[in-house]
């Protein structure tokens, strides 16, 4: 009998918890949580003991065996479906050293750039790769997927265009999922879409008035045509041209930038990232010069550190929603960092010549297949293509597709008469012969004279501009070199494999190895998102189980797993509320109340759902100001759509009045959106649906163990009450539109989610769902509750032990916090001049990742230890904080000057204490070994404190030349 997984996941054992409870003056974790949480929301009031739909906890071996069984119900066929998803070879050196390496996948978003130089370099490689291939100036460090990137391109064009129009032209020959997303998102914002069959002969009259035009290149059907004329027409009309381009095709085709495009978008999936039934993969966006500040999402830039050396960090952060709220360029925050790193490394490993070779081989195989089909008189419709072409089979498409499937190949049936076939880098000549066979002529394949086959792309679109000329793309050809490059970058970074990352609101808990097991299995990784239903029964079963479990633990009736980030979950939930009000004839309800303490993403998502944000004040205790809430509700009684509230609040406190707040909103005809970012403080003890929530998103990358990947992937399912179910996201290409619905009799029922899609793939990023599935399966209902208790205990223990050093900003009942605590550094700053930044950077010298800085309150640190840290690590952190307070006091006492002390000068690199004369008033050991234990176990930051202003004033978002580092 192996040890229960709960004891592997939760860091504190019984003895440690007893010690911590004694420090706090409680005799059990149950009592502690009961004292912290209002009794009125406790789950016991709403459900019977033993009422849970969750199975008893499985061991790690049992859970993996069950996943094996689920995987066996998926059928991996050779996919030639295309539509933006292509099979690819993940170089084994990247799979082993990035995808399966906790140094990469357990890191957080690089908000502390001094300890994130490795993945920031990897991301600037990605940006450089995208900018080079698309021929544009600046690329961001990833979008959520291609279709959402097209939507963001449309929104960028709307912001930047001076045309004054609200009409957007959409290439009729684009991917169907992109059409569906554009329709859903444009409707919420009052943007008119016009589908036009674009081609070389398109005229200004064909287009009318518009602010932007979207072109798919090559087109959705695989056809290559020259969009230059359409792009020129757009510019004459003061409109912007957004081009979705296939990255591999761009190795051979003229770049969007060379064609004059303003924005290029797409996906990097086929650069070594498995299809995974739809995701996660990194989408991309690049813009021409002058549009940098309009970019959504994360952007890595080059700056300098305190020693004047080049250093990377996130640039232009004020574009983002945590600053600009409803005026942000987008609501997306989490991106797809891990996948962007993999795609960038694919280009590093293959280099420009390797990419050209791969692209050429794909194109030649496609050409060979067309020649073989034409040799047996099959009617191929597409003349100029890269890897995809359409075939006319009058009234016979279904039969041919079925025949191909029987021999292990999935083709795409466009309609009753038309089939589409896509070739990728894994396609072999044998594969081609089987496809020809499905058309009744396999024997003909051997008679094709491949040397005589005419290949070639339209000569006016031959790529002549160079790409990937930077040395990083021309150095690591051997696996040894690649392995060492990946190791070097990983060593620059601080991830969970080094120590605690106590980031408040981020829930950096364990991502257990057994939870990761299934992600790279071919039965989960090798499936196309639009594979036929018969091939994905295992996936659908896993999805159904996870829907059931998440419904159960949140107190809702149904769940959609489609949103591929928390921000998208928010948007999906708000769009469901919008749809619900409209169906009731109440489309005037567009006001969204949001407390001032809310995460900025709430406001940004509300704006994108076509809602108007009205801010509700918070009182001095950090809670929603009830007087102001009632006033705002009364003021907007006729147009109130929703209240968005985070629970426990972003202040890390269980608000006592949450039930009252929800009731007041309902009484005024509004819906309650509960942001699930802090669900880790609630699981097993209380449920959103019980105390008044109508809809919530959950962050599977927080509470349910999907690793942060250095800033993505995330998964943000949206859970809702039954009355909103019909408005949750559906998908035109979904294998099944039925979803779990909690029914009163305990009988399993289903419901159709009939809203528009918010992600390119029907189930978002399904290949990482086995992680959350495994977590719930191995914890069981009791384990989840224990985890919550341990998380709340740890946060209160930290607050208690630090109370004499750093005052706690907010607490709730009995002076207790929830799963995180805000340490108020403002008194320290006022007394000593030592800032939040100084403490955060000094923690690096002590071997720690800083807590969350200045969110949700400027001048504070928010600490979330999570349940996974053991007492030794928690105490080590607390002791470091106390020691740093002592150092600050020494500055206050005048022992060290305010502008030359270990805090002000932190972090200290090895170079900074070795090179030159030492002229500081503290010694070198104090600088780098403030604790004796660090001598043998030291994390050395590769750079000193980074100058953010310099980087934003001198924006550089591509790889600097190697000489810059000399």
């Amino acid at each position: 009998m192996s040890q229960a997984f709960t004891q592997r996941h939760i860091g504190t054992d019984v003895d440690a918890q007893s010690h911590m409870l004694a420090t706090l003056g409680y005799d059990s974790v149950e009592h502690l949580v009961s004292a912290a949480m209002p009794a009125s929301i406790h789950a016991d009031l709403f459900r019977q003991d033993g009422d849970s739909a969750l199975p008893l906890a499985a061991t790690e071996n049992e859970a993996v065996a069950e996943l094996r069984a689920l995987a066996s119900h998926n059928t991996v066929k050779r996919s030639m479906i295309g539509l933006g998803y292509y099979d690819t070879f993940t170089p084994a050196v990247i799979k082993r050293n990035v995808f399966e390496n906790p140094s990469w996948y357990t890191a957080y978003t690089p908000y502390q750039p001094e300890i994130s130089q490795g993945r920031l370099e990897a991301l600037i490689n990605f940006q450089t790769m995208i900018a080079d291939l698309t021929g544009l100036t600046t690329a961001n460090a990833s979008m959520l997927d291609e279709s959402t990137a097209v939507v963001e391109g449309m929104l960028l064009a709307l912001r930047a265009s001076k045309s004054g129009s609200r009409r957007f032209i959409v290439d009729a020959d684009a991917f169907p999922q992109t059409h569906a997303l554009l329709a859903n998102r444009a409707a919420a914002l009052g943007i008119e879409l016009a589908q036009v069959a674009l081609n070389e002969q398109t005229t200004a009259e064909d287009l009318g008035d518009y602010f932007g035009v979207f072109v798919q290149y090559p087109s959705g059907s695989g056809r290559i045509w020259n969009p230059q004329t359409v792009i020129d027409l757009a510019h004459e009309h003061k409109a912007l041209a957004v081009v979705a381009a296939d990255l591999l095709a761009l190795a051979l085709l003229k770049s969007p930038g060379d064609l004059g495009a303003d924005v290029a978008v797409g996906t990097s999936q086929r650069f070594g990232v498995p299809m995974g039934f739809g995701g996660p993969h990194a989408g991309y966006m690049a813009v021409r010069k002058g549009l940098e500040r309009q970019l959504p999402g994360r952007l890595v830039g080059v700056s300098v550190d305190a020693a004047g050396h080049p250093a990377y960090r996130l640039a232009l952060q004020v574009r983002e929603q945590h600053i600009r709220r409803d005026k942000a360029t987008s609501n997306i925050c989490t991106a797809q960092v891990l996948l962007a790193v993999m795609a960038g490394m694919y280009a590093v490993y293959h280099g420009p010549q390797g990419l050209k070779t791969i692209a050429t081989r794909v194109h030649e195989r496609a050409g060979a297949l067309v020649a073989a089909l034409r040799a047996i008189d099959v009617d191929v419709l597409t003349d100029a293509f890269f890897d995809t072409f359409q075939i006319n089979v009058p009234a016979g498409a279904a039969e041919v597709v079925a025949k191909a499937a029987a021999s292990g190949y999935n083709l795409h049936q466009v309609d009753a008469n038309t089939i589409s076939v896509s070739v990728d880098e894994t396609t072999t000549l044998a594969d081609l012969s089987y496809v020809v066979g499905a058309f009744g002529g396999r024997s003909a394949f051997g008679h094709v004279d491949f040397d005589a086959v005419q290949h070639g792309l339209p000569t006016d679109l031959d790529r002549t501009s160079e790409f990937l000329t930077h040395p990083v793309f021309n150095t690591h050809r051997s696996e040894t070199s690649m392995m060492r490059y990946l190791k070097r970058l990983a060593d620059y970074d601080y991830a969970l494999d080094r120590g605690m990352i106590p980031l408040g609101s981020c829930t950096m808990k364990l991502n257990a190895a057994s939870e990761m097991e299934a992600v790279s299995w071919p039965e989960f990784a090798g499936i196309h998102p639009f594979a036929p239903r018969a091939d994905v029964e295992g996936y659908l079963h896993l999805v159904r189980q996870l829907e059931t479990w998440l419904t159960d633990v949140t107190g809702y009736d149904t769940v959609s797993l489609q949103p591929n980030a928390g921000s998208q979950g928010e948007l999906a939930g708000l769009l469901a509320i919008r749809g619900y009000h409209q169906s009731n004839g109440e489309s005037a309800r567009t006001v969204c109340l949001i407390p001032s303490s809310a995460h900025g993403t709430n406001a940004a998502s509300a704006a994108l759902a076509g809602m108007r944000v009205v801010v509700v004040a918070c009182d001095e205790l950090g809670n929603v100001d009830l007087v102001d809430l009632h006033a705002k509700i009364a003021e907007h009684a006729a147009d109130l759509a929703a209240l968005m509230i985070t629970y426990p609040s972003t202040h890390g406190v269980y608000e006592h009045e949450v039930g009252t707040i929800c009731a007041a909103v309902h009484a005024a005809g509004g819906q309650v959106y509960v942001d699930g970012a802090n669900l880790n403080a609630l699981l097993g003890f209380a449920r959103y649906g019980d105390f008044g929530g109508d809809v919530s998103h959950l962050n599977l990358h927080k509470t349910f163990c999907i690793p942060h990947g250095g800033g993505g992937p995330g998964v943000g399912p949206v859970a809702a009450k039954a009355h909103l179910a019909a408005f949750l996201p559906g998908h035109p290409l979904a294998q099944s539109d039925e979803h779990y619905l909690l029914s009163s009799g305990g009988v399993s029922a289903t419901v159709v989610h009939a809203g528009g899609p918010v992600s390119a793939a029907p189930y978002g990023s399904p290949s990482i769902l086995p992680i959350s599935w495994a977590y719930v399966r191995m914890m069981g209902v009791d384990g989840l509750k224990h985890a919550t208790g341990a998380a709340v205990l740890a946060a209160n223990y930290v607050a208690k032990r630090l109370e004499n050093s750093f005052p706690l900003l907010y607490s709730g009942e009995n002076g207790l916090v929830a799963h995180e605590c805000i340490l108020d550094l403002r008194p320290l700053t006022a007394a000593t001049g030592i800032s939040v930044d100084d403490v955060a950077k000094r923690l690096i010298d002590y071997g720690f990742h800083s807590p969350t800085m200045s969110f949700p309150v400027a001048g504070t640190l928010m600490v979330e230890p999570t349940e996974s840290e053991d007492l030794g690590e928690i105490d080590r952190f607390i002791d470091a904080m106390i020691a740093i307070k002592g150092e600050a006091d020494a500055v206050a006492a005048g022992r060290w000057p305010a502008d030359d002390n270990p805090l002000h000068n932190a972090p200290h690199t090895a170079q900074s204490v070795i090179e030159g004369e030492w002229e500081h008033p503290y010694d070198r050991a104090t600088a780098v070994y403030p604790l004796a234990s660090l001598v043998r176990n030291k994390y050395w930051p590769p750079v000193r404190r980074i100058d953010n202003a310099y980087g934003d004033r001198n924006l550089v978002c591509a790889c600097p030349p190697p000489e810059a580092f000399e």
Partner: protein
Amino acid sequence: MTDTSSLQYTAEHEWVLVDGSVATVGITAYAAEKLGDVVFVELPGVGSTVASGTVVGEIESTKSVGELFAPVNGTVTETNDAVVDSPELVNSDPFGAGWLIKVEFETLPTLLSFAEYSALIGE
């Protein structure tokens, strides 16, 4: 060195220097300090018409964004190109080289005096 006591002010932490019918506008040292390191300034076009109290530009720092409000109704006659090229001027010399726009106006609304503004920011 600008004599800040001779300037007029707004509650949005802007200063106004009136010279005949032209108002020169900038943000106060207090505002610049609160914003932090200014990295980008977006100003209205010369010749554009502005309405008092409306947002006509932005002042971006590394951690925050401030809006530039027009303190008067009028027409923009000049903008400070130097501050667009070197946004740090807003921090280093907010009352001088860090000025932002000049607006020609017909009537001057009531603005805050130095004493009133000092009281507003608690100094």
